[in-house]
């Protein structure tokens, strides 16, 4: 009987930019990166799995905060044929705000000079259908503030990777992609 669980997806390659950036693929398949303005993980989605979990811990260089957005990629090329639409909500003590934006695929929502953590559930990137993902972030400031987002990508191309891009500054951390063996 097949075992259910999470399977680490080792990238076939990674690509990064940014002043003084460095990145490496660890022996366990995770990716360590430093001072990156962009980071691409190639070959992490395959026909073996439909759905994925991406876990990151992140440290940025901008005290007022930045974020990383995502484009799906095919063989390292970011996909723009479809539309990325992001719904977002932010619960900060008793204040809740929300917004929707097109042309942006929110991924990691709050990166500051405090360590943050996020998990992203991505559904069907390698299937010939729309891809959707959902992110939950928390970070080490403001006492448990929740920032949550859901994203759709309207095109049905079969994508094998992600390209992450910072809105400002550079980001360091660790990221791992897991396939759901369902």
């Amino acid at each position, binding site marked *: 009987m097949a075992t259910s669980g999470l399977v680490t997806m*080792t990238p076939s390659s990674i*690509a990064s930019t940014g002043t003084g950036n460095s990145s490496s693929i660890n022996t366990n398949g995770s990716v360590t990166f430093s001072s990156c303005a962009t980071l691409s993980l190639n070959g992490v989605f395959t026909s073996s799995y439909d759905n994925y979990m991406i876990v990151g811990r992140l440290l940025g260089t901008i005290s007022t905060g930045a974020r990383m957005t995502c484009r799906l990629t095919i063989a390292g090329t970011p996909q723009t044929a479809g539309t990325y639409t992001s719904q977002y909500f932010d619960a900060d003590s008793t204040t809740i705000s929300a*917004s929707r934006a097109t*042309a942006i695929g929110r991924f990691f929502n709050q990166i500051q000079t405090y360590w943050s953590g996020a998990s992203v559930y991505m559904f069907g990137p390698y299937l010939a259908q729309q891809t959707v993902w959902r992110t939950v972030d928390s970070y080490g400031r403001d006492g448990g503030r929740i920032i949550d987002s859901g994203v759709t990508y309207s095109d049905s191309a079969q994508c094998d990777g992600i390209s992450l891009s910072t809105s400002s500054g550079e980001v360091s951390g660790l990221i791992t992609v897991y396939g759901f063996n369902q």
Partner: protein
Amino acid sequence: MAIKPFEITTVYPDGTKETRWSTPEETAQREADLAQFEADRIAREQAEAEALAKRESAKAKLAALGLDADEIAAILR
């Protein structure tokens, strides 16, 4: 603001590295992304400022009706 071509470093699982300059398309895409990020940030901050102003206005009107600070806080919680 126009940005210059930037280096892209590709790393493979065996540790092999390749470095190349961004193509004109990649440079233009990054420039467009940064412009989009800035526009989105400005729009979000404006929306937050408007929401805060409305909240303060509502608190002032509630106070004018005779509610004390605790009652106003309870309503707005």
